[in-house]
C-alpha cells in the first residue's frame, strides 16, 4: 500500500473511530450521531475522494478511495459515504462538477434503466437505491432511444422516492423519474457503460463486506475469550476454535478477493475480461463469505448476538444487505458463466491465470 493511501485511510479510520463507534451508534436510536459524522467526513474531503480537484473534489486516487471503503466496512458505516463517492466518480466521468452533500447513484441494479427523452428530460424507475431518501442529489446513468449513454446530475427533490429498508436497516428506496429535467447532462465517455458502473459499485460493496467480516472475526474472537460456559472460556472448546478458524478463512477469502479486484480496477488500462473476472468474482465470493462467515459469528455469540442491544447485527445484517446492491451474486454468476462459456473451455485457465 502506498504511503498516501495509508494517510487517506488513516484519516477515515480516525473519524470512524471517534464518531462512528458501533456501540454508541447502536444505543442512539434518534440518529444524533449522523450530522457530526457527516460534517467531519466532509471537512476531510472524503465523500468526494474520487472527484478531481477541478470538479470540486479532493482528487484522491482510486486506490486511496478503495482503502477508505475497506475501513468503512470495518465500521459497518451507515451513512452514504460509499454512495456519494460512487456518485462523484460517475459525475467526474463526464466532467460534471459535484455538489456538496449526500448523493447516491441511480440505477443501483443491473436490470433497471433510466431513459433520456427527446426533450432531454429523464424517465424511469430504479429499485433498491441505497440511501436515496438521504441524498440531496442523484448521479444518474441514462440511455436515449438510440442507446447513447448520458451522465446526469439530478435534484433528488424532483423525483418520487418510495422509502424502503434493506436488511441492515439502511434505506434502500425506489426512485421514480417522470420527465425530470436534470441540473446537468453530458454524454458518457466512449466505452463507458452500465456494467462498468455496476462493477464499480460491486467492488465498493465487496470491500465493505470484507471489512465487516474482519470486524465480525475480531469481535467473535474477543467474545469467545470472555464468555465462560461449562466452566471454561468457550474459546477453549475445539468446536468453537474450528468455527472461528472457518470464519477466519471466509474473512481472508473475502478480503483477498475484494482487495485484488480493487487493485485490478485501480491499475486497469482497459476494461477487459480479466478486470471483469476480478470485479465479478469479488462480488460473488464476498457475498458467499457474508452468508457463511456471518452465520458463524452469530453461532459463536449465541443468543446475545441476536439481540438488538448487541453490535453484532450492525455488521452481520449490513454484510448480508450489501450482497444485493449493484447486482447480486447470482446475477453476476450467470454473467460470468456466460462469459466463460462464450470464450470456451480451453480459454478458462488462461483467463484465471491472467494475473
Amino acid at each position: 500500500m502506498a504511503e498516501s493511501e495509508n494517510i487517506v485511510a488513516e484519516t477515515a479510520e480516525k473519524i470512524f473511530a471517534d464518531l462512528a463507534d458501533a456501540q454508541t451508534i447502536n444505543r442512539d436510536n434518534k440518529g444524533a450521531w449522523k450530522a457530526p459524522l457527516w460534517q467531519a467526513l466532509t471537512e476531510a474531503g472524503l465523500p468526494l475522494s474520487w472527484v478531481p480537484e477541478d470538479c470540486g473534489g479532493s482528487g484522491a486516487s482510486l486506490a486511496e478511495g478503495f482503502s477508505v471503503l475497506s475501513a468503512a466496512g470495518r465500521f459497518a458505516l451507515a451513512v452514504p459515504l460509499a454512495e456519494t463517492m460512487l456518485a462523484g466518480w460517475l459525475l467526474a466521468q463526464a466532467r460534471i462538477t459535484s455538489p456538496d452533500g449526500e448523493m447516491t447513484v441511480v440505477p443501483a441494479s443491473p436490470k433497471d434503466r433510466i431513459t433520456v427523452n427527446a426533450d432531454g428530460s429523464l424517465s424511469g424507475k430504479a429499485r433498491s437505491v441505497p440511501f436515496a431518501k438521504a441524498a440531496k442529489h442523484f448521479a444518474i446513468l441514462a440511455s436515449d432511444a438510440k442507446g447513447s449513454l448520458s451522465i446526469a446530475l439530478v435534484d433528488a427533490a424532483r423525483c418520487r422516492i418510495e422509502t424502503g429498508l434493506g436488511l441492515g436497516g439502511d434505506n434502500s428506496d425506489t426512485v421514480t423519474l417522470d420527465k425530470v429535467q436534470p441540473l446537468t447532462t453530458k454524454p458518457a465517455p466512449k466505452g463507458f457503460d452500465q456494467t462498468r458502473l455496476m462493477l464499480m459499485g460491486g467492488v465498493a460493496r465487496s470491500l465493505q463486506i470484507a471489512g465487516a467480516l474482519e470486524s465480525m472475526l475480531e469481535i467473535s474472537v474477543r467474545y469467545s475469550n470472555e464468555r465462560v460456559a461449562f466452566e471454561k472460556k468457550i474459546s477453549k472448546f475445539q468446536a468453537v476454535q474450528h468455527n472461528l478458524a472457518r470464519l477466519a478463512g471466509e474473512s481472508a477469502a473475502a478480503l483477498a478477493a475484494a482487495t485484488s479486484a480493487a487493485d485490478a480496477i485501480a491499475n486497469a488500462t482497459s476494461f477487459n475480461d480479466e478486470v471483469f473476472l476480478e470485479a465479478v468474482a469479488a462480488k460473488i465470493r464476498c457475498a458467499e463469505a457474508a452468508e457463511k462467515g456471518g452465520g458463524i459469528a452469530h453461532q459463536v455469540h449465541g443468543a446475545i448476538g441476536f439481540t438488538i442491544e448487541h453490535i453484532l447485527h450492525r455488521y452481520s445484517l449490513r454484510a448480508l444487505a450489501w450482497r444485493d446492491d449493484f447486482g447480486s451474486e447470482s446475477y453476476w454468476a450467470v454473467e460470468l458463466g456466460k462469459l466463460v462459456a462464450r470464450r470456451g473451455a480451453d480459454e478458462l485457465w488462461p483467463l484465471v491465470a491472467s494475473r
Partner: protein
Amino acid sequence: MTAALRFDPIRLPSECEQLRKEVRAFLAEEIAAGTFDPHKPNREDTDVPEFSRKVGARGWLGMTWPKKYGGHERSFLERYVVTEEMRVANAPTRRFFVADRQSGPVLLKYAPENIKMDILPRICRGEVCFAIGMSEPNSGSDLFAAKTRATKTDGGYLINGTKIWTSSAHIADYMIAIFRTSPPTKENRRHGLTQFLVKMKQPGIQVNPIGQITGQYEFNEVVFTDFFVPDDHVLGEIDGAWKQATSELAYERSGPERFLETYYVLTELVRAVGTNPDTRSAEGIGRLVAQVHTMRRMSVSVAGMLQAGKEPVVEASIVKDIGTVWEQQLPHRVRDLAAFVEETATNRETLEKQLDFAIKTAPKLTIQGGTTEVLRGIIARGLGLR
C-alpha cells in the same frame, strides 16, 4: 483489527508471463508426442522418469535454489507459474514433485555440505524421487505419537519400526523421515524426534504397497528392520525435528496443488455445456470460477510472502483448509450441473469418466499434508485461541 489475515494482491511480474508461455509450449509438445493425456487424470502410472528429466533439463526444478547446487536462483513466483501450469495440464509430476517442493528445501537448510552437493543437483536434473516419512500406524497427523526408533550405533543409527501412508515410497530413491531418538519429556511432548535422510532400496527396508479406492497405488507401508543410517544423514538438530518440520509447512500447504487437484472437471463441464449455456449451468459455472479465482489470488499472495522471506504458517494453513475443502466439493458441484448437459455433448463420456475418478479422489484431499482438523487448530492458535 489484529485478528484479520492480510493477503496482499500480489501480481505476477512480467518475467512470469514469458515463462508461462514456455511451459505451455513444452506441455503442448509433450501432449502431442503422447507422453501424457491431459484429459485422463486417472492414468495407471503417474511416474514418468523421462518426463521428469525433460522438466529438469528445462531448468524448472530447484528453481529457487542456489546455482552451486544446480538450482536456478529464480523467484517463488516463477516456480509458482510452473507448478500451476503442470497441475492444470495433469502432467505426470509424481517423480519430482515432492523433491522439488519440500525435500530439497529441507536438505538445503539442514543437510551437511557433502550431501547437498551430491543430491541437490540430481534433484534439479529430475533424476531422483523423494518420499516423506511422517505418519506411522496409529499416529497419522499426531506426529508426537511416532514410535519408530533410531538407536545410536557405531557411525550412525539403527532404525526399527514402520512408517505408513508414505506416498511414492515404492519408486522413491530417498525418504526424509522423522524417527524417535529420545522419549518425549514431561515438559515437552514434542521433544525427542529427529529428521533423517534415508537411502531407499537398501537391505533392512521393505516397502509394501497399499491400494487406494481410486484403484491406484500411491501409498505404502515401509518397514525398517535394523536399517542403518550413517551419522551424516542426520538433518538438523537431534531431538529437535518438530520445529524444523513445522517451519517447512508453508511450502507444502499453500501451493496451487492445494486447490487445483480436481480442476479438470470444471474445464470439461465448460466444454460440455457449450457456448450458450442455460441459466442454471451459467450460474453454477460462474460461482465455481469466482471461487477458484479467489483461491488462486490467495495462493499467489502466499507465494509472494515466501518470496519476501516470510514464514506464513497460518496463511498457508488457511489456503490449504479452504482450498482442499473446495477441490473436494468441486466434483460434486460439477456433477450437479452435469445432470443438465445435453446427450449430444461430444465430451460427455470423458466428463463422466473424469467425474467418477474425481469423486473417488475427493475424500483424500482434506487428509493428506495435515487434516482439516489439524489445520483449523493451527489457525485457531494464530487467532490467539490456544
